[in-house]
């Protein structure tokens, strides 16, 4: 291989090696749960073997030597000469971490003198059947030479870097190696933008055809319309990746966290195969990590506490994803101590987040969301639930920045559920164009469940609030012109020929009153900038075929 310039393969090596490490970590967590699972063990063995072959080909000695010794340990496991539990698993995990540092070193090209002798010796001890003296879970305290210390710092840095989304890019793709290729994400972004621009130009052409009554052009445009829709979908699809790309790294994180905090956790993942826009996935990683950490740290109780209240010592945390119409719901659910709405309420009032009056009528789900207020949590975490507030404001804001919604449900003593609702994509949406006074607005179609003519006889008043009866359902009414502040006359409620749009946000439904509706349109979301960014009730803008700019209503904010 010497005459070959291997450096050109380094990139492929690094990304494939990282993928292997993610699956090794996930598989070992699995094996630790069920040490007798031969299938998982042979998966680990195979991946380790591939990694060894790869690094030998590239001439990376440290990776080759380390994987070689590791393979020997795995072989012992396979022959049941060593059991996959306690410190055996810990040492192998440490070995994975070391490999990760080594690969990061290869990737960055920064020599950091990573020392593998320590870990190699410990692996060899396992092979020779020497018992490790430390208790499980304890960090090894080898006497560290300065060089080793440095390497360790590097390792830590590398681990932290591993949490960054940038690495996912490398992990993307090769799962279906046989038919896939790697594409720089920026190319896909460009494609997405171009498709967006094309959709706009197409609408402009449609307008010209309509204005000038050109029949032939209209027909061609219908064809173009179909192609544009297909193209849009195809481009969107290229950006979809399975959630497993981030989910796979959580079991290891949860295991380490539980160990560190002295808790016992049974962590389960569902729906990792659900696909999501890659850009969105990058965005949700951090909030999800936060929610999961919170669940272990503050959600669940220590084993003894659980036993004392008659729960199983081992807590259950579940991460699940499912597709709903128009959005993806991701849930983090624990069976820990939960939150008492009364306690949250009292604290929120005490902190001045809500007035006592408002708090009285507040439904539970809104009360729980108060923990996301930055004022809620303080340094002195005395009460049971105060810890829950840590960083929740960050979680909520970052989710909202890409139209995600957080909802919280909790039963005191039984556990909490944090649900994140995400849009399928962030760039192109179907929207209904409505008229309010002289303005046109776009409302995302997935918020709208129904459009009906406004009938005055259905207008009722309950507790001084206007509602409308829609097939036995009482809908609170919101007059868009008032909500948007574009009212011209005082008696706006007196006019007829209006429409009611039934919209849903979270688990609430309301009726929005608009003057008229124009129709359904695919729109490209352009984000607002400057002072517009903070305008309440608006989530963005789009450009229509005639070149006019239309604001997109943020239904969740209006409701």
């Amino acid at each position: 291989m010497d005459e070959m310039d291997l450096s050109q393969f380094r990139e492929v090596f690094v990304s494939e090696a990282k993928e292997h490490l993610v699956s090794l970590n996930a598989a070992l967590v699995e094996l630790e749960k069920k040490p007798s699972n031969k299938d998982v063990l042979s998966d680990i063995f195979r991946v380790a073997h591939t990694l060894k072959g790869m690094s030998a080909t590239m001439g990376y000695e440290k990776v080759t030597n380390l994987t070689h010794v590791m393979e020997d340990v795995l072989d012992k496991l396979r022959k049941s000469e060593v059991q996959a539990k306690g410190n055996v698993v810990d040492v192998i995990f440490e070995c994975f971490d070391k490999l990760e540092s080594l690969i990061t070193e290869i990737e960055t090209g920064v020599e950091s003198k990573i020392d593998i002798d320590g870990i190699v010796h410990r692996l060899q001890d396992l092979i020779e059947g020497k018992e490790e003296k430390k208790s499980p879970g304890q960090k090894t305290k080898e006497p560290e030479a300065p060089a080793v210390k440095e390497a360790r710092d590097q390792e830590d840095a590398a681990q932290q870097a591993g949490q960054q989304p940038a690495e996912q890019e490398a992990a993307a793709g090769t799962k279906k190696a046989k038919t896939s290729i790697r594409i720089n994400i920026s190319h896909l972004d460009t494609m997405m933008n171009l498709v967006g621009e094309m959709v706009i130009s197409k609408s402009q052409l449609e307008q010209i055809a309509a204005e000038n009554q050109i029949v032939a052009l209209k027909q061609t445009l219908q064809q173009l319309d179909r192609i544009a829709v297909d193209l849009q979908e195809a481009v969107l699809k290229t950006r979809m990746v399975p959630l497993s790309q981030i989910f796979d790294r959580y079991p290891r994180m949860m295991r380490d966290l539980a160990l560190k905090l002295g808790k016992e956790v049974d962590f389960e993942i569902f729906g990792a195969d659900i696909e999501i826009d890659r850009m969105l996935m990058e965005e949700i990683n951090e909030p999800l990590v936060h929610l999961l950490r919170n669940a272990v740290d503050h959600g669940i109780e220590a084993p003894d506490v659980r036993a004392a209240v008659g729960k199983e010592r081992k807590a259950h945390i579940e991460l699940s994803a499912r597709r709903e119409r128009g959005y993806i719901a991701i849930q983090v659910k624990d069976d820990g101590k939960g939150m008492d709405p009364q306690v949250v309420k009292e604290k929120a009032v005490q902190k001045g987040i809500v007035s006592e009056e408002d708090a009285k009528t507040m439904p539970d789900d809104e009360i729980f969301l108060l923990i996301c207020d930055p004022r809620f949590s303080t340094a002195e975490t005395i009460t049971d639930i105060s810890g829950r507030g840590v960083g929740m404001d960050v979680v909520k804001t970052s989710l909202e920045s890409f139209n995600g919604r957080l909802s919280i449900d909790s039963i005191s003593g039984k556990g909490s559920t944090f649900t994140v609702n995400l849009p399928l994509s962030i760039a192109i949406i179907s929207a209904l164009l409505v008229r309010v006074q002289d303005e046109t607005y776009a409302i995302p179609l997935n918020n709208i469940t129904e459009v009906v003519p406004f009938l005055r006889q259905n207008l009722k008043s309950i507790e001084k609030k206007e509602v409308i009866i829609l097939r036995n359902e009482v809908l609170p009414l919101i007059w868009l012109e008032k909500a948007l502040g574009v009212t011209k006359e005082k008696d706006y409620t007196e006019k007829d020929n209006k429409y009611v749009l039934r919209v849903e946000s979270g688990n609430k439904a309301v009726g929005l009153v608009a003057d008229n509706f124009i129709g359904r349109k695919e729109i490209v979301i352009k984000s607002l900038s400057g002072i517009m960014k903070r305008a309440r009730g608006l989530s963005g803008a789009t450009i229509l075929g005639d070149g006019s700019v239309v604001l997109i209503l943020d239904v969740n904010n209006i409701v």
Partner: protein
Amino acid sequence: MSTILIVDDSKFMRLTLKNLIEKSFSGAHTVAGEAGSAKEAVQKYQELKPDLVTMDIIMPEESGLEAVKRIVAIDGNAKIIMVSAMGQEKIVEEAMMLGARSFIVKPVKTEDLIKSIEKVIGR
């Protein structure tokens, strides 16, 4: 000129092997296709009818041995070179019994590869 099918579950290994073959023979032998699993190997073999196959042994789901078995069943004259890691002599032996013609050891050395390919194709 002969065509070669590379079978390996690692994209990286396929890439390096392909590069090695193309450089070493300067076009005399070309890589006709790649397969990432035993199943795909059999399918690609039927489709491409390559003159030679390089076969990785340890792969997910089914091993390279399984692929050798099935390819030989389809084509008794199939020319397969096993690409193995060190310490897999037993498996290599088994592969040869099943009909593989030769083997090379990872990390692949250029001269081994050339020798092996010339020996098998020349036959």
